[in-house]
């Protein structure tokens, strides 16, 4: 939808480029895409497809790492544009020669000449050959240059490019797109006023990352047609990574794929996780699976209804987004939570217009759901709506009751009588008959409550929920939250974990002399302080290693053995230095400084 919006405005902008002749500005679109740089790729790809289909085939993408100078920029630009041309016309144009980069002069004039030759060709060819692609393009399609990561470009390159292009705006209709990750102020900090005055900049903002996440969760998890579902803990882990670390939708999708793989690999019951149609083949479990399916459908409709309900309340006691509500419902019986109580109380105080809108939305949800049980519900809700409408007619009759009480207060009385009348009024108000509107409101809230209790049962109360739900969050966390230092420490401290050699299986405290050298050296260094004396370390190492030999090591070979042990020690110490655990110290000779502490 963002693309639709930006595309229509973009088309407007490109039609106006002829008007820009007056002031010689290059039309520019500044796209603010958000901090999740990994997702920008996808956005640019879909943008280029839309543009290629509708406006122009000449699109070039430029990345900062490829353009350290203007020359490289021009080279890349020309390479991409000429390749675009070849792709479109390769079937019909036999004598177009692919030129290598070296032979083409990468200057603006050659680009202009190429563009003229290309547009002249399309003009002459369209009468004779009917090409459907060109009918969507214009007479002189603009050349679109996309700067994918604006922040990383150096200012000199950008400035020079813009100055050069603005000189030739008449011959080469250029449109620039800036892909910005942080904020549009970066344009002002990268380009001086003299250069930004050559551009006609319009701002486009994409949807925030949280909206993208909601759309994805909506499409993947909150659909009855998709049989795989995530348990509450797993969903929490994925959402936490998204919110806390990076706003990357791509990583969320990858995590989801990992869940699917884990589920189907490790859970034997997952064989049954499939669409309902296939489930009919298995007679014994068929009934239960059908139940599960029906449960899902009902659950989803009621969940949406509840979300509509609670989204009207101030302070959002059950969460603003539907995913938060979904997590709460998955965790335990939602009607027992405090937030639910408070939301019911607040709902009892809603005003009429809000209630009516809310009910209408619920009706729409139930009507569009595929479950068959909701016809009664729809009727009941419609009944509520008609009752509300009837109330409007009767509203003015109730005003008389309150007027009379006011008249009593206005009579002249002394203090004692005034006190008495006020107390009487207060009493009467307590036992006052609730107005019809309030009664109706009460009924509505109770009905919604009953719906919730019936249908929003958390999934783990249903039989066979393990088929569809993946809930081992610990596995997911291990894979997604990489902790390299912990992994290193485990490997060095406890090599059995990775090498699976029976001889290495030992407890934490002792140092087995059959372990690899680096493990021995590592465990020894853990016992030292800040500065480690290399000679002492070597002694300890050789003691441990020589203990393997047994007591019959003779003195004759001790020198040789010492050399080998020395060499092994040196190798292990340099490996530790490479890994970053120690570093050579200048404070004392023959010492190294220890860099890490704690057992992690």
């Amino acid at each position, binding site marked *: 939808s963002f693309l639709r919006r930006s595309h229509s405005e973009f088309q407007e902008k490109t039609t*106006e480029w002829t*008007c*820009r002749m*007056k*002031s010689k*500005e290059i*039309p*520019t679109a*500044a796209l*603010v895409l*958000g*901090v999740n*740089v990994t997702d920008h790729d996808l956005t640019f790809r879909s943008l280029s497809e839309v543009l290629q289909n509708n406006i122009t085939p000449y699109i070039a993408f430029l990345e900062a790492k490829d353009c350290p100078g*203007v*020359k490289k920029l021009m080279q890349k630009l020309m390479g991409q544009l000429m390749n675009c041309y070849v792709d479109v016309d390769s079937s019909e144009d036999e004598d177009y020669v692919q030129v290598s980069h070296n032979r083409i*002069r990468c*200057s*603006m*004039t050659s680009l202009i000449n190429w563009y003229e030759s290309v547009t002249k060709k399309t003009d002459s060819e369209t009468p004779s050959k009917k090409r459907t692609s060109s009918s969507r393009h214009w007479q002189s399609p603009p050349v679109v240059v996309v700067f994918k*990561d604006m*922040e*990383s470009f150096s200012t000199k390159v950008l400035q*020079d490019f813009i*100055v*050069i292009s603005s*000189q030739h705006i008449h011959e080469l209709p250029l449109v620039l797109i800036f892909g910005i*990750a*942080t*904020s*549009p*102020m970066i*344009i*002002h900090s990268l380009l001086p*006023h*003299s250069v*930004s*005055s050559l*551009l*006609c*900049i*319009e*701002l486009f903002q994409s949807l*925030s*990352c949280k909206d993208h996440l909601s759309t994805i969760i909506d499409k993947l998890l909150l659909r009855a047609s998709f049989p795989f579902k995530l348990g509450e803990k797993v969903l929490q882990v994925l959402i936490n*990574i*998204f*919110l*806390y*670390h*990076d*706003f990357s939708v791509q990583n969320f999708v990858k995590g989801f794929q990992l869940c699917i793989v884990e589920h189907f690999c490790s859970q034997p019951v997952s064989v049954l996780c499939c669409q309902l149609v296939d489930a009919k083949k298995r007679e014994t479990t068929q009934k239960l699976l059908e139940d599960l399916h029906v449960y899902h459908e009902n659950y989803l409709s009621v969940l949406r209804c509840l979300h509509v309900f609670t989204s009207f309340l101030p302070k959002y006691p059950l969460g603003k987004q539907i995913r938060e509500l979904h997590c709460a419902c998955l965790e335990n019986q939602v009607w027992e939570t405090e937030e639910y109580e408070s939301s019911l109380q607040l709902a009892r105080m809603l005003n009429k217009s809000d209630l009516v809108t809310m009910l209408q939305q619920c009706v729409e949800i139930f009507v569009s759901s595929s479950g068959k049980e909701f016809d009664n519900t729809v009727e009941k809700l419609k009944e509520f709506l008609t009752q509300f409408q009837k109330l409007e007619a009767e509203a003015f009759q109730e005003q008389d009751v309150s007027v009379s009480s006011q008249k009593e207060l206005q009579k002249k009385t002394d203090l004692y009588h005034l006190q008495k009348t006020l107390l009487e009024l207060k009493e009467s108000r307590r036992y006052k008959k609730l107005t019809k509107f309030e009664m109706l409101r009460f009924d509505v809230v109770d009905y919604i409550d009953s719906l919730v209790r019936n249908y929003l049962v958390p999934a783990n109360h249903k039989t066979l929920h393990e088929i569809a739900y993946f809930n081992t969050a610990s596995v997911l966390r291990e894979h997604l*939250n*990489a*902790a*390299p*230092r*912990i992994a290193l420490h485990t490997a060095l401290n406890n090599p059995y974990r990775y090498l699976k050699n029976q001889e290495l299986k030992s407890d934490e405290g002792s140092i087995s002399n059959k372990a690899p050298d680096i493990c021995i050296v590592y465990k020894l260094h853990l016992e030292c302080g800040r500065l480690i004396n290399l000679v002492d370390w070597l002694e300890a190492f050789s003691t441990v290693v020589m203990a393997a030999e047994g007591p019959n090591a003779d003195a004759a070979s001790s020198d040789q053995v010492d050399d080998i042990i020395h060499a092994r020690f040196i190798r292990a110490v340099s490996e530790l230095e490479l890994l*970053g655990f120690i*570093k050579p110290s200048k404070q004392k000779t023959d010492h190294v400084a220890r860099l890490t502490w704690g057992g*992690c």
Partner: protein
Amino acid sequence: KKCLSNLIFFPSIFIYGHTSSGKTYVMQTLLNTLQLPHVFVNCVEYFTSRLLLEEILMQLQSCCSETEQTSHVHCDTFNDFVRLFKQAVVSEELEDQTLYIVLDRAEQLREMEANILPAFLRLQELTDRNVTVVLLSEIVWELFRPNTGCFEPFTLYFPDYSIGHLQKILSQNHPPEYSVDFYAAYINILLGVFYMVCRDLKELQHLAALNFSKYCEPVVRGEANERDTRKLWKNIEPHLKKAMHTVYLREISSSQWERLQRDDGEPGQLKGLSAHTHVELPYYSKFLLIAAYLASYNPVRTDKRFFLKHHGKIRKTNFMKKHEKTSNHLLGPKPFPLDRLLAILYSIVDNRVAPTANIFSQITSLVTLQLLSMVGHNDQLDGPRYKCTVSLDFIRAVAR
């Protein structure tokens, strides 16, 4: 033409002046009107010496000849250029006229090879032909002079336009439907509003063109005639003030401005570029950025005081008393090592932060977004140092 032919013996002329003081325009008009053979090249566009020299030769080929054909000329060094230049002048029969080579934005010549600038200045001597090289630039000659010395050109200064000159120049561009006086009055008003902030002729022309339709509105609608200066002034003045805040600063584009004028809507609805400074960052990234800011701007000795529970008093030494006056905010951010950043991060985040790889990759992403910058060589693996590049306002907005 006669007086210019007396300048034959000037091998090089250097013209300098501020932006929009008319240097390019005057040169081009002069050469075109007097139909002198010339080559006009913009040095920013032809950014390598090879491109520049080849372009000059190509333009020379098409200079006096009527044919369209320009064959590609290979010219790598200045030596080749001199040789080819001599041939070209002979073939084009320009021997009795002075050829002018005009190099616009000549400050780019300093970035090219070191022999280009001195060679151009002596081109007449090297090629033994009648050629004058004119250099146009915004920078004074003293900054151009190479260390090895060169032939000094004749320097000409183009001063800025005064307000009277600007008035005259802008009034000449009036559209044909309206009288000169009407347009002159409009220019008067425009200059009154914008002269304080902008004296650039190109900008003012652009602004004049954009806002003229609004100025004519009362006349078009029939509410006033051309002479009702007071009414026209009241109509246009708030509009111009708004323009100063938006279009001049490039907050909104000129096409948006024109659309606004047509629809007669409120510019307040359209948010300019600077309204969108807020950046959404993930939770830990916000803390990383705040920790980086604290690490950059607080001196190391105060760390213990701020971040540990039981700190001692810090005794002020003489050294510190001397240097207390300059606020750290004015001095700019100082670089800090990675360990210090992590230490501060662990102490400001409330709950325990697991040291996963995600945190470290976030630091690198912040560098890519130019919110942090890496100081020191890329190969230095054992102690990467960073600097925080955002301002206090940004941090305050993030910290909320």
